[in-house]
């Protein structure tokens, strides 16, 4: 029986604020899972802490709501032990780029085949609106006592520099586009990263839905001048086509340059994709040929309550 969108929804009450950008992301994620027809028990959503951390409870697949900043660690462990699972990790920008930044960089270096989605809103919502890593220097969102004293992290740039092999940005109010991006990210062979711009209607009074829509740029008229535009509409080619240093460098640098664009024009879409970098599982199978057929979660370790691992060779080598 084909799975419908409704099958991916739980009955858990959603307590996000009215108008929260998170709704668009969870909807897009459910739509993507339904469209890909991934069985509910073959996918796990790992989530961090904060508003976005609750995501896993709203999706009717395996859901692991982890610790602040540590979502990637749990997710990678799960995926390594059971590589057949589809793994999507989600979390806020404070979670992933503040307290969890070390894990973000390390995950990029590994390139495990899974997807990481950051709900990027510039504030720590659930603790009442402190500045988060993506808030720009000098900006003062409404609950800050004084303007932000830190320079912002560039999520796309950091992902590209850390070795993520699929790097994209979505917008939570463009749900269809976001759904398509999620599908691309999940299907990508390697670690994919999605930075999703997600207005926090309660605490971020700068990067609001209206701001993204460019209402302030419309001047006298009510006509909208959206800041958001799609890279694909500009014929931007993010793909590394062949394994050559100059090709890779060109694609990396154009992604980095694009990631710096902000203010009047904000690109969304795929910034960078490289499937020529080996996945972590390939690096493992080089050493452990049957890793994917017989991963940790599948291995037989006992029979009738007794161990089946044969260590006699090791023990013999220690024998006197």
């Amino acid at each position, binding site marked *: 029986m084909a799975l419908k969108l409704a099958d991916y929804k739980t009955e858990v009450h959603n307590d996000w604020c009215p108008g929260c950008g998170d709704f668009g992301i969870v909807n897009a994620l459910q739509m993507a899972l339904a469209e890909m027809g991934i069985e509910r028990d073959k996918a796990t959503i790992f989530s961090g802490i904060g508003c976005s951390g609750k995501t896993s409870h709203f999706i009717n697949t395996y859901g692991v709501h982890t610790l602040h900043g540590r979502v990637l*660690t749990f997710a990678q462990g799960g995926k390594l032990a059971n590589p057949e*699972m589809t793994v999507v990790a989600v979390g806020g920008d404070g979670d992933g780029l503040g307290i969890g930044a070390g894990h973000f960089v390390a995950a990029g270096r590994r390139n495990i085949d899974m997807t990481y989605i950051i709900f990027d809103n510039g504030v720590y919502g659930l603790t009442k609106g402190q500045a988060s890593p993506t808030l720009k220097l000098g900006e003062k969102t409404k609950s800050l006592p004084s303007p932000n004293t830190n320079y912002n992290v560039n999520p796309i740039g950091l992902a590209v520099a850390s070795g993520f092999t699929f790097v994209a940005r979505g917008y939570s109010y463009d749900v269809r586009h976001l759904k398509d991006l999620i599908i691309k990210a999940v299907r990508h062979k390697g670690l994919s990263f999605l930075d999703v711009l997600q207005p926090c209607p309660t605490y971020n009074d700068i990067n609001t839905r209206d701001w993204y829509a460019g209402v302030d740029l419309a001047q006298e008229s009510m006509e909208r001048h959206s800041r958001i535009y799609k890279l694909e509409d500009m014929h931007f080619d993010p793909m590394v086509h062949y394994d050559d240093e100059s090709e890779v460098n060109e694609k990396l640098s154009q992604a980095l340059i694009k990631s710096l664009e902000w203010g009047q024009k904000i690109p969304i879409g795929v910034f960078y994709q490289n499937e020529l970098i080996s996945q972590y599982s390939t690096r493992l199978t080089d050493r452990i040929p049957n890793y994917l057929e017989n991963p940790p979660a599948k291995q*037989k*370790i006992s029979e009738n309550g007794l161990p089946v691992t044969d260590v006699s060779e090791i023990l013999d080598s220690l024998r006197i």
Partner: protein
Amino acid sequence: MSSVDFTWLIGGPQGSGVDSGANVFSKVCAQTGYQIFGKREFYSNIKGDHSYFVVRVSDKDIHSNVNDITLMASFDAETIFRHFNEVSKDGGIIYDSDLDKITTDEVHTLDTYFKERLHKELTFKNKPFTITGVLEIAKEKGVNLYPVSFREILSNLAEETENPKLKGLVRMFNVLAVSLSLGLIKMPLDPLLQSIDSIFSKKSQIAEINKQAANYAYDYAKSKFDNFQYSLTGTAKRPDTILVQGHFGTSIGKMVSGCRFQSYYPITPASDESVYLESHELLEIQNDRPGSTIVIQTEDEISAMGMMIGAALTGTRASTSTSGPGFALMTEALGWAGINEVPIVITLYQRSGPSTGLPTRHGQDDLLFAVHAGHGDFPKIVYASGDIEESFYDTGRCFNYADIYQIPVIHMMDKFLSSSVVTCKKFDPQKVSIDRGLLLDKIEGEYKRFAFTDDGISPRSRLGLDNGVFWNTGDESDEFGHITEDPQIRIKMMDKRMSRLDLVLSRIPDDEQVVSFGVSDYTIISWGSTKGPILDAISMLKKEGIDIGFIQIKLIHPFPSDYVSSLLKNTKTIIDIEANHSGQLGKIFKQNISREIDYFILKYTGRGMTSTEIYDSLKKIVENKANKREVLSHGA
């Protein structure tokens, strides 16, 4: 025939082959039938600082080192300065005669504090601050001196073998020191040559040079020195004996127990285990395709913990191995594993804290920390092994406990164990059982991961299992695993989880919880690696007609109060022996049993306890001459 109890020390700068020298010596002694207890001491340093290895050799069962060194093999000045006083009367010192005139100030790695103490002694005894000075003291005590010019040996050898490269080959000093020792004690030569062959099995040329040098030095000692009263000519080999290093118990134990995922961050002294697991990652499985252990070096201990939990959620037996500073970083996630009832095993190789403390030295400092690790109330097991052989079987137990009770297990090990090299009975995998508890293979119908059940344990699904969808959260949750703040569910969930502690105490057999080596008027309570020196000290006292009891507490949390109380009910004097400052087990004991500890024997120098020290303190206690706190300090 009198029994053999011989202690050999080799020392030298880190990186000069002290370890490999000691390994050769241990192997030779083991191959000639002796029991071995060896232990390595080293600085937190890669090259140059002083390291040493003490190997005790006997034809009886031994479980510890003793204070007195029978033979010291040195090839540098620092070893002599630091250890000359430990050599027993009638013992011997093999040393490089070219070092005679070296002054303490010329040895830059001798620290000020040590030098001050040494200078005081030398001044008092009216000796110069030189090697000659300290050796005179040894000689006056009755120690035999065996001067050898290491350089001269190499030059002679170079001439004899027409191999000029040998001349000045300082790298060979360790082999010379070992071979001189073996010649002096009249050990058969063949095991030495075989041992060199096996170490350099891939470099036959180097093996050849080493064998020539070994042969020459062996003959040199045998022919030139004849006044040494100790000889080790071999004894009956015991069947099924293995020679193991400290981490082999837990690492081979993990393979056998079916641990298939280990994440770790490098830290002394825990990482040896992970590196060993990785170098043996391919596993042979009876009647099945090959298995493997996935070993992941993570970016930090927080990640090691997160990955392990993620892997454990898939039904994989997963583990990490760490030491105090790393474990400190893991505690937030430990609570997550606790509230989510995730079976994980943390192998905690303790060292001396606080903070970085004495990073390469021993300590049992983390017992209270392990028991209390993590915020909030959640059940966990803290289980301690007393020796390497035990740690193999205990590793299997820890995984079973984790699976059966669905709680995190902290397996306490330490640096004393990790840097020991001992002979023991071959590990028997068939004595390890594997019990996965209520782990499910198949699910039909509605499933609730945290279903309320009679005994508080819920059947466990795993990520990826058909129809087994569940949720986890670090928040309080309902039976499905969804967040709840309902006060009534909160009570039921807390009670459900915490009731495990009673289950653990009622279901784990008594002799897995506590090992009693007999109780008497005076009974020792202890835990972990103090077991060996305690057992040896007790048997020394027994020979003098003094009977001391000993109960080794293995399950420390939850604490088996009733059983321990019942064991100690006729004991008049309780002695707590631990390698920490505050007597941490004693605190737990008092808290649970409301009985005072009468004496503490404690050591927190970072060096392991010797049986001599424990013997001395116990004797003082029995003779009513001891302080309430006996603080031990032996060891350089």
